[in-house]
C-alpha cells in the first residue's frame, strides 16, 4: 500500500508498460496514436509531432474518439512520465489493454531531437467561439485551424450565397471572397438573408461584408464587385481553395465549371427553381463536371430561370446550407462529399432523392481530349430570357 505520492508513482510505474524514446518513435512512424495529457500552457510550448492533445481531466471522456480500438497500442505522454503513468491506469480501467507510457515524457523527447512542433494556438476568445467545434473529434483544434486557413470564393451573394456565407463565416472559414456586381434591392429581402432592409441600394458584396464581419471578426473578406468573365475568372479563382457556385445563369455556371476544372478546384454547386433544388459537388476526376451532366445549356426559350418563375423564400436556405456543409466537409477532409451524386430536393413534398452522376469520357472539359484554355469557348447568357419551359 502506497503511503505517499512517491510510493504511489513508483508502484504505478511498476504495474504498467513503460517505453523509451526509440521504441516510441518506431510506433509513431507506424501511425500509433500519441496522446498528450499535459496542461494547455505546456502544450502551447510544443508537442510531439502528430500527437493529439487531450487534457488529463478529459482523458476518459474523449479517448475513445481518438483511439477506438482498445486492444491496439496507444502511447500516452506528459512532461516527465509521471502524470501519464496515472493516465495509463485510467485507460486500463476503461478497457485499454495496450496503453504505453512514454517514460521520459516530452522533455526527454525534445532534447533527443525527435520530431515535435509548436501548435498554432487560439486566443481565449477563439476558444470560446469555436468550443462546439473543438468538442467534435472530427473537427477539433486541428480542424478549426484548417477552416481558418481555408479560402472560399462565393460566386453570387444572393439566395444561395447569403445563408451559406453567414454559416461559413460563423464556422470560421478564414477567408471569404464575394463576387457579385449587383445592388441589394427590396425584392431580395424575401430570401437573401445576408442583406438587411436598411442596406437596400448598397452593393451586395459590401452588404455581405458587413454581415460577415458582424458575425465573426476572424474572417478576412475580399470583395469583387464585378461580373465573372473569362478574362477575370482564372485570376480571381487562383487565390481560393473552394469555389461556391450560387449564380443565377447558365453562362456563369459553365464559366465557373470550366475554370474550376482547369484549376483543379472543387465546385460546390447548387441551384433552385420554384419549390425544387439541386446540389452536388463537381471535382473531376473523382466525379463528373457540370458539362458531363449537362453538355449544353438549354436554348433561351427553354431556360428555366427563377427570376421570372419565382422561388420559395426558404428554399435557397435549404440548398445553400447543403452547399455550405459540403464546403466545410471538404475543407476539413471529413465524411463523404456529394462528388458523383446529385441531391434533388422537392420542398412541396419534403423529399430528397439521390441521383448517381458519372463522368463522361467524351466531356470536352474534363474528358480524355480536354480543352486547356477558355479562349475559344463562348459563354452566352441564356438565362433571364423567355422561360417558356418554365412558364405555368
Amino acid at each position, binding site marked *: 500500500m502506497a503511503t505517499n505520492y512517491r510510493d504511489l508513482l513508483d508502484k504505478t510505474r511498476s504495474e504498467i508498460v513503460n517505453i523509451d524514446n526509440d521504441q516510441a518513435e518506431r510506433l509513431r512512424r507506424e501511425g500509433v496514436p500519441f496522446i498528450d495529457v499535459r496542461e494547455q500552457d505546456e502544450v502551447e510550448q510544443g508537442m510531439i509531432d502528430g500527437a493529439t492533445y487531450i487534457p488529463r481531466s478529459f482523458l476518459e471522456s474523449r479517448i475513445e474518439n481518438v483511439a477506438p480500438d482498445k486492444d491496439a497500442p496507444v502511447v500516452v505522454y506528459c512532461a516527465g512520465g509521471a502524470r501519464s503513468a496515472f493516465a495509463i491506469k485510467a485507460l486500463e480501467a476503461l478497457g485499454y489493454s495496450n496503453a504505453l507510457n512514454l517514460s521520459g515524457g516530452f522533455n526527454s523527447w525534445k532534447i533527443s531531437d525527435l520530431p515535435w512542433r509548436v501548435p498554432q494556438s487560439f486566443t481565449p476568445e477563439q476558444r470560446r467561439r469555436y468550443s462546439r467545434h473543438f468538442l467534435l473529434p472530427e473537427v477539433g483544434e486541428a480542424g478549426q485551424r484548417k477552416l481558418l486557413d481555408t479560402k472560399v470564393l462565393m460566386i453570387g451573394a444572393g439566395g444561395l450565397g447569403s445563408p451559406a456565407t453567414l454559416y461559413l463565416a460563423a464556422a470560421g472559414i478564414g477567408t471569404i471572397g464575394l463576387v457579385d456586381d449587383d445592388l441589394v434591392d427590396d425584392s431580395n429581402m424575401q430570401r437573401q438573408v445576408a442583406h438587411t432592409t436598411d442596406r437596400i441600394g448598397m452593393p451586395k458584396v459590401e452588404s455581405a461584408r458587413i454581415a460577415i464581419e458582424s458575425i465573426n471578426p476572424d474572417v478576412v473578406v475580399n470583395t469583387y464587385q464585378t461580373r465573372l468573365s473569362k478574362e477575370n475568372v482564372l485570376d480571381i479563382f487562383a487565390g481560393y481553395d473552394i469555389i461556391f457556385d450560387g449564380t*443565377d445563369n*447558365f453562362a456563369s455556371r459553365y464559366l465557373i465549371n470550366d475554370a474550376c476544372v482547369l484549376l483543379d478546384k472543387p465546385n460546390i454547386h447548387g441551384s433552385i*427553381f420554384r419549390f425544387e433544388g439541386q446540389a452536388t459537388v463537381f471535382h473531376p476526376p473523382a466525379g463528373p463536371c457540370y458539362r458531363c451532366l449537362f453538355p449544353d445549356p438549354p436554348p433561351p426559350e*427553354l431556360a*428555366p*430561370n427563377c427570376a421570372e418563375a419565382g422561388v420559395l423564400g426558404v428554399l435557397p436556405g435549404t440548398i445553400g446550407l447543403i452547399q455550405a456543409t459540403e464546403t466545410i466537409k471538404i475543407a476539413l477532409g471529413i465524411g463523404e462529399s456529394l462528388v458523383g451524386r446529385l441531391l434533388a430536393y422537392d420542398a412541396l413534398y419534403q423529399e430528397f432523392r439521390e441521383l448517381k*452522376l*458519372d463522368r463522361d469520357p467524351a466531356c470536352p472539359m474534363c474528358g480524355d481530349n480536354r480543352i486547356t484554355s477558355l479562349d475559344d469557348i463562348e459563354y452566352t447568357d441564356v438565362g433571364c430570357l423567355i422561360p417558356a419551359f418554365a412558364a*405555368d
Partner: protein
Amino acid sequence: MSTTGTVTVLIPAPLRRFTGGESKVSSGGSSIAELIDGLEASYPGIRDKIVEDDGEIRRFVNVFVNGQNVRKLDGVATQVKAGDEVGIVPAMAGGSVA
C-alpha cells in the same frame, strides 16, 4: 399507352404545366422511349421538352431510372419495369437572383 406495368415518373417543376401541376405521374412502357411516348399521349407537348426530334434525350436534360442516369445505361432503350421510379432532371440556373 402500354399496360406492361406502372412506372412512377417524377415531373420537374418546369414541366408540370403539362401535367396539370402533378409532380408524380404514372406511366407504362417497357423502355424509356415507350414511357416518354406514354407521357406524350397523356400530356401532349411534354415529349419535345425531354427528347430531340430523333428521340434522343436532350443535352440539357438527364433521365434517371432508380437513381441511375440512362446515358450510362442504354439511353432511351433502357428497360423499365413496374415499380421503377424515373426522374427527369433538367438543368436549372437559379441561385443568386436580382
